[in-house]
C-alpha cells in the first residue's frame, strides 16, 4: 500500500468516524442523563442537516453561523420533544419501576417520535433529495495525496465539539449534576437543584449534538429524509463497541469503526460492513461491556 493511499484511507476513516462519535456522544448523554434509548436520534440528525440547508442555502447565512443555528434549533427541538413526550412519560415511573420497563417504554416513545419526525420532515420538505455544495470545495494536494478541504473541516469541527463537550461534562458542575441526576433524581432535587431542567438540558444537548453532526455532514453527503435511518444502526454499533457510558470508549469505538469500514471497503469490498458487524460480535465475546465500558445490568 502506498503511503498516499494510506493517508487517504485514514482521512476517510476520520471523517466518518468523527460523525459517528458526535452521534454517539449525543446518544450516550441522552441515555445516561435521561435513561432513554433514543431511536429518534437519526431523525434529529436528519433535521440538523435540513436546518443547515435552510439557513445556509435558502437564507444564505454564513456556514459557521448556520451550523450553530442548526445545533441550537435541534436543541430546541430536543427540549420540546422532551417536554412533550418524555417528561409526561417519566411521571409514570416511580422509584420501584424496573429498569427494563422504563427502558422499553421510553424507547418505544422515541420510536413514536421517530415516526412523526420522519414523516413530518418528508411532508414539509418533500421527497426530493437535496444537498448543499460545500463551502470548502478546495482540494488540498499534499505530495500527490488529494484531500478534500471539506473533510479536513469536518474533522476539525468534530474535534472542537468533542473538546467542548469534554470540558462541559468533566470540568463543569453541569456534568456532575447530570451524572448524579441519572442515578437518583430525588436525591439531587433535595440539594436544591431543579432536576427537571437538567433532564431537559440533557435531552437538548444530545439532540444538539445530533443536529451538529447532521449539519457538519451536510456539505459532504446529501440531505434526504432517509438519511437518519441509515446512520442510527451504525451509531448504535459504535455505542456498543466503545462501551456504554464511556466518553473515551465512544471516541475509540467511532475511530475503530471508521477505520474498519474505510480499510474494509478498500480490501474487502461490499462485504466490509458485514465483516465489521461480525467483528463487533467477536469483540463482545471477549469484552461484554465494549472496549472501554463495563458490563452492565
Amino acid at each position: 500500500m502506498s503511503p498516499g493511499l494510506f493517508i487517504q484511507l485514514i482521512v476517510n476513516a476520520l471523517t466518518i468516524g468523527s460523525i459517528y462519535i458526535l452521534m454517539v456522544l449525543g446518544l450516550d448523554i441522552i441515555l445516561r442523563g435521561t435513561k432513554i434509548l433514543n431511536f429518534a436520534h437519526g431523525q434529529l440528525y436528519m433535521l440538523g442537516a435540513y436546518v443547515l440547508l435552510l439557513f445556509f442555502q435558502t437564507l444564505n447565512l454564513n456556514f459557521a453561523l448556520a451550523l450553530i443555528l442548526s445545533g441550537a434549533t435541534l436543541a430546541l427541538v430536543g427540549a420540546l420533544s422532551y417536554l412533550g413526550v418524555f417528561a409526561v412519560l417519566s411521571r409514570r415511573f416511580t422509584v420501584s419501576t424496573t429498569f427494563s420497563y422504563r427502558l422499553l417504554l421510553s424507547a418505544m416513545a422515541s420510536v413514536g417520535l421517530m415516526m412523526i419526525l420522519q414523516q413530518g420532515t418528508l411532508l414539509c420538505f418533500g421527497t426530493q433529495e437535496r444537498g448543499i455544495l460545500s463551502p470548502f470545495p478546495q482540494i488540498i494536494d499534499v505530495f500527490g495525496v488529494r484531500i478534500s478541504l471539506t473533510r479536513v473541516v469536518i474533522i476539525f469541527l468534530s474535534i472542537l465539539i468533542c473538546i467542548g463537550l469534554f470540558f462541559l461534562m468533566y470540568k463543569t458542575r453541569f456534568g456532575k449534576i447530570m451524572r448524579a441526576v441519572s442515578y437518583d433524581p430525588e436525591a439531587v432535587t433535595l440539594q436544591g437543584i431543579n432536576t427537571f431542567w437538567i433532564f431537559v438540558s440533557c435531552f437538548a444537548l444530545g439532540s444538539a449534538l445530533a443536529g451538529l453532526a447532521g449539519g457538519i455532514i451536510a456539505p459532504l453527503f446529501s440531505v434526504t429524509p432517509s438519511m437518519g435511518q441509515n446512520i442510527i444502526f451504525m451509531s448504535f454499533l459504535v455505542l456498543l463497541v466503545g462501551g456504554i457510558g464511556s466518553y473515551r470508549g465512544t471516541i475509540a469505538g467511532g475511530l475503530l469503526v471508521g477505520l474498519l469500514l474505510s480499510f474494509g471497503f478498500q480490501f474487502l469490498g461490499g462485504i466490509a460492513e458485514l465483516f465489521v458487524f461480525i467483528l463487533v460480535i467477536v469483540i463482545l465475546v471477549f469484552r461484554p461491556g465494549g472496549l472501554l465500558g463495563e458490563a452492565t445490568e
Partner: protein
Amino acid sequence: NAAPATPPAPVSAPATEAKILKLGCTLPFTNSLGIDTKKALEMLVPAFNEAGGLTVKGQRYNIDIIIYDDKYTADGGRAAVERLVNEDKVNYIVCQVGSAPIVAGLAVTEPAKVLVFCGGASGKIIAPQNKYTYGTATWRTNLAPLFPLLTKSFPNAKTMVNLSPDDETGKALAADNAKVATALGIKVLDNIFYPRDTQDFAPFATKIMVLNPDIMDYPGAVAGTQFGLQFKALYEAGYKGVHVSPMQPNLIEVLAVTPKESMENLISIIPSTDVPNPSEMAKKYKADWVAKYGEWSSASLNWIPAFYAFIEAVKKADTTDAEAIATYLSANGVQWESPNGKGMLVKRPDLKGDRFCDTCASLDFGIFKNGKYEYLGTLSPEESLKANETAFGGTWK
C-alpha cells in the same frame, strides 16, 4: 391572471354507457419515485378517460386506477396486492416500481391470473414461470445499445470499472455490463459493490483511483443524490475519464450535491422530453405536468410506459380478459408509444424464456459537456433490440 375557480364541466355522457375497468397499482408513498409515478398516473388516467377512454369490442371503458402504498417492502407490497386482487378484484396491475413489493406480490397475482406490467429491475420478475407478468422498464435492455455509442465517442477508452450497489440488481447489471463491454474490447478492471445506503463514496473513489480506469460505469445506480455523491467522490479523488450510465441522473438532485464539472463526459440515456425535437406526446405530457404540479420531474417518465403498454395490449388483444391478453402477449408481443418514446415487448432467450416478457424501447442519448447535456442521438426500439441480440445472442423477437 384570474383563472375561473369552478372546475371544468364534465364531458357530457356519450351514447353508450361506459363501463369501468379497474386498474391496480402499488407504489411507495415515501420516496420520490413512488410519488412522482403516482402523480403521473393521477394526471394521465383522468385525461385518458376524458379523451374517450378505451373501446373494446365496441364497448367503451373508463379506467379507474386504485393506488396503494406498498411501503417499498415485501410485506407492504404483499398486503397491498392482496387487497387489490382479493378486495378490489382488479385484474390488472400496472406501474409498480420496486422489486421487493413486486416479487412479493407475484405469489398472489400469478395464481389469480392477474396481468402485471411493472418496472422493477430484478430479473426474477420476468422469469419464464411468471406467465402473467411483464417488465416494461428498460433497465435490462438498454446496456447493449449504450456501449457502442460510447466506443464511438471515445475510441481510446479501453479500461472500465463498474461501481454498483451491492444488491440483486446491481450485481446482475454489473455482470451484463461486463459482458457487453468485453465484447467491444473494453477491459473490465473490477466490479466494485457498495452497500445500498452508502453516502460516503470516498473509500470507493480511493480504490478506483488505484485502478485508474478510462471509463466509469454505474449499473444499477439510483438516480438521486447518491449518484451525485459518486461523481463528487471521484471528482475529488481526481478522476478525469468518461462516465457512462444507462440511466439519466436526476439533475436537480445530483447537482445539489456535486459541482457540474464532476459530471463532465457522462454519457447516458436522457428523457424523451429533452431531445431537440420531442414527440407531441412528450411535449404535451411535460406541459400538462408543469400546468398541474409546477416543478417538472423527468423521473416521472420512467415508470409510466407500463400504463401505455397495458392500453395497447388490451386494444390489440381486443378483450378485457386478463388470461386472453396474456396468451396474446406472450405469443405476439405488443408495441406502444408513450411520452417516454416507443417501446415493444421482446423475448429474453438469455434468461431461458421464449415468451415476450421484457421491453426494448427507443432510447435517447446525451452527453454531459461544459455543464449541460448535449443530445447525442436516438435509437429506435428495433435498433435497441438488434444491439441486444448481438450482445447476448438469441432471437429476441
